[in-house]
């Protein structure tokens, strides 16, 4: 087990290196710092001095990979790659193009993201799994047919409409909750309940369909027939026997998402003005702040790789037959 974990951890190193090099290529080689400067300062009437100053303030005026002018190790360290990309390995994100400290921003903004993403995930899975089990309970009836038809319909609505419609209905017409905003204190739930509801509802369509196929795979197996034969009720069979055996694929889907809870949901956060990492990313994209986008790419990838690792470990916990070598 520990040997396996160490090997998986080591395998993460080339992956992170790959992500790092890819982002470096995208942000500094394909798109040179000169282009970024011109983009930020406006296209027309930008003198070379203004560009030089802009680059110097942000440390983009160094050579990309190899500094000819420096001495000794500075030949490697006094470069954009070393200063901007290697720091990411140690989670030193540096400063954004607007001069803010990205690391500090991330640390303050990840809490609102967690506050909204965690309950969304938990509640979403609970609702989807229960509904899917109910659909399986009523299989081969009209209820199943229309339930599945409803799921396809729900799935075909763009998530934007769920958000816009929910805000209009609950926020504006019924005036139940504030349309958007965020408060860190005890009143936070008033702001969180609407995005939470909407993210659960918008996930029902695809979620129920997915879990239903998992349960249908299990429901014809021998152990289920045995459970029925010994006289257990169908509800009991489904919610204990089938659910427990379908846990492995359910877990795979969830555990990989856990670390990504930190980065939050892009759409929800930006529509509901929640100051989390999702809206941070969207703002950065819209302001074309490459330093933040680069940091978020790296952070997201790291968390995803961590999620893959956690998935493997969780296998051994739910299924004693699985041994990791």
């Amino acid at each position, binding site marked *: 087990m520990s040997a396996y974990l160490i090997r998986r951890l080591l395998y993460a190193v080339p*992956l992170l290196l790959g992500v790092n090099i890819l982002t470096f290529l995208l942000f500094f080689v394909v*798109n040179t710092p000169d*282009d970024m400067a011109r983009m930020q300062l406006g296209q027309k009437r930008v003198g070379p001095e203004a560009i030089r100053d802009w680059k110097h303030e942000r440390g983009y005026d160094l050579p990309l990979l190899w500094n000819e002018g420096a001495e000794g190790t500075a030949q490697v360290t006094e470069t954009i790659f070393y200063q901007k990309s290697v720091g990411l390995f140690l989670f030193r994100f540096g400063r954004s193009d607007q001069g803010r400290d990205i690391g500090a921003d991330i640390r303050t903004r990840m809490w609102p993201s967690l506050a909204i993403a965690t309950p969304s995930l938990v509640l979403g899975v609970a609702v989807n799994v229960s509904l899917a089990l109910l659909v399986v309970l009523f299989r081969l009836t009209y209820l199943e047919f229309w339930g599945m038809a409803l799921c396809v319909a729900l799935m075909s609505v*763009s998530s*934007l409409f769920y958000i816009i419609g929910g805000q209009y209905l609950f926020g504006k017409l019924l005036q139940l909750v504030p349309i958007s905003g965020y408060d860190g204190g005890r009143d936070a739930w008033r702001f969180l309940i609407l995005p939470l509801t909407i993210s659960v509802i918008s996930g029902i369509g695809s979620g129920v369909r997915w879990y239903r196929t998992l349960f249908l795979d299990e429901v014809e197996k021998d152990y289920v027939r045995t459970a029925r034969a010994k006289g257990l009720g169908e509800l009991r069979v489904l919610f204990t026997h089938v659910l427990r055996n379908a846990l492995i694929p359910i877990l795979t889907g969830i555990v990989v998402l856990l670390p990504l809870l930190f980065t939050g949901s892009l759409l929800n956060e930006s529509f509901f003005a929640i100051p989390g990492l999702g809206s941070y990313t969207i703002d950065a994209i819209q302001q074309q702040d490459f330093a933040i986008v680069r940091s978020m790419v790296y952070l997201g990838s790291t968390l995803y790789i961590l999620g893959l690792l956690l998935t493997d470990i969780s296998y051994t916990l739910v299924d004693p037959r699985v041994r990791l070598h």
Partner: protein
Amino acid sequence: MIPTLFWTDGLFFLVLAMAGALVLVMRRREHFRRPWRTVSRSTPAMVSLVVIAVYLAVGIVDSVHFFPRADAAGSAAGANEPISLLDHWLGGLRTRTEKTYSEPFAAYAYAKEHLPTADGGQRWDYPRLTYGGAHLVDPESERVRDIAVTGVRGAGQGGLMWLIAAAGIAALIARSRREPIGRVVHRVARGQTPLPWRAMLLTLLLLCVGGGAIAEWSAHYHVFGTDKVGADVLYQTIKSIRTGLLIGTLTTFVTLPLALVLGLAAGYFRGWADDLIQYLYTTLNSIPHVLLIAAAILLTQVYMAKHEEAFASLALRADLRLLFLCLILGLTNWTGLCRLLRAETLKLRELEYVQAARALGVRDHGILLRHILPNVFHIVLISVVLDFSGLVLAEAVLSYINIGVDPTTESWGNMINSARLELAREPPVWWSLAAAFVFMFTLVLAANLFADAVRDALDPRRAE
């Protein structure tokens, strides 16, 4: 009229030609005909196919571009932008713009204005629209009746067109099955044909009647109202069809070659090739897709700004951005299919017939092309059909974050994006959102239903 071909037009027609060729090839192979026969017997699938075909027809007509005037080359840039055949046909809709918002079927504007009165003074009231309901003398009393009469007339024309089409289809069925036409009509009406013709014809009837009524209305009214700058919303949402279809189809130009070549190679050759390819797609997969797309789109913008002279016309620039978006979506989308293909190839290469082929000295590329590719092809088909609706939905989200299609391109995402704050107005401006919702939902729902049927029929684990 000088015809012109945008990049996306050409590639779209290429996709259609390839799909057509594929249909011809599959018609001759029994192992493909059997699953498709299952699909063709499924009512939801065939009804969806009718809807998709109508969308496709609009998309095709909207992809034939030309310069409206003959002196295209000589005139100043921008003054003579190329238009599509659809623009030409909907000419009125495109040019009949009001000043600002107006409700669906409205004759009066959304906002009050100072209007001159007969005695030289001014009054504060809703002005009449320039085009919407302009033929009415007194909208208050005549409008509802006029809408009803025009609607019935349009629906009647649509119904007539449907009758002709239905008669033609019945005649074709009668000829191919060598039965008297009366019996064919009888059997279609009772739903006793192997293909669900009754459901398909009813769908077509609905589309014809609805389309006829809308066409007739739109000559005198703005059926879905107008937006902030007074442009007709119906026109925008019809134009968005092409964008949605392109995003859903052109992406395959990147996904399919990458996934096929890399997936088959990884599964078949194993060893270092497998390691390398797995490494490649795990790396790509671990980068959040939205951010990768954002980065790539930002880069394209920078590139376009730097090479302004190469993208002279606005239409060309918007078109290339759409193309880039498709390519980038393809780059982030191939990994899932590649993984499926790799796993399936790993299984297939150990089967006896492949071993036998290898023992007989068939070369690797021969085995891959003749023995493995045909046997993984159903995975490719399923994945392409399943991905389509997701891509159409993704476009809307990306446009909201401003990393989607060009702001000047009509797309459902852009419509939603520009209309999302308008619900907060008093009275709320809901019609742009409603139009985008109806048209987008119909396409995505049809695509989802069709994809489900295709998957059920083609996936051997699900069939029977």
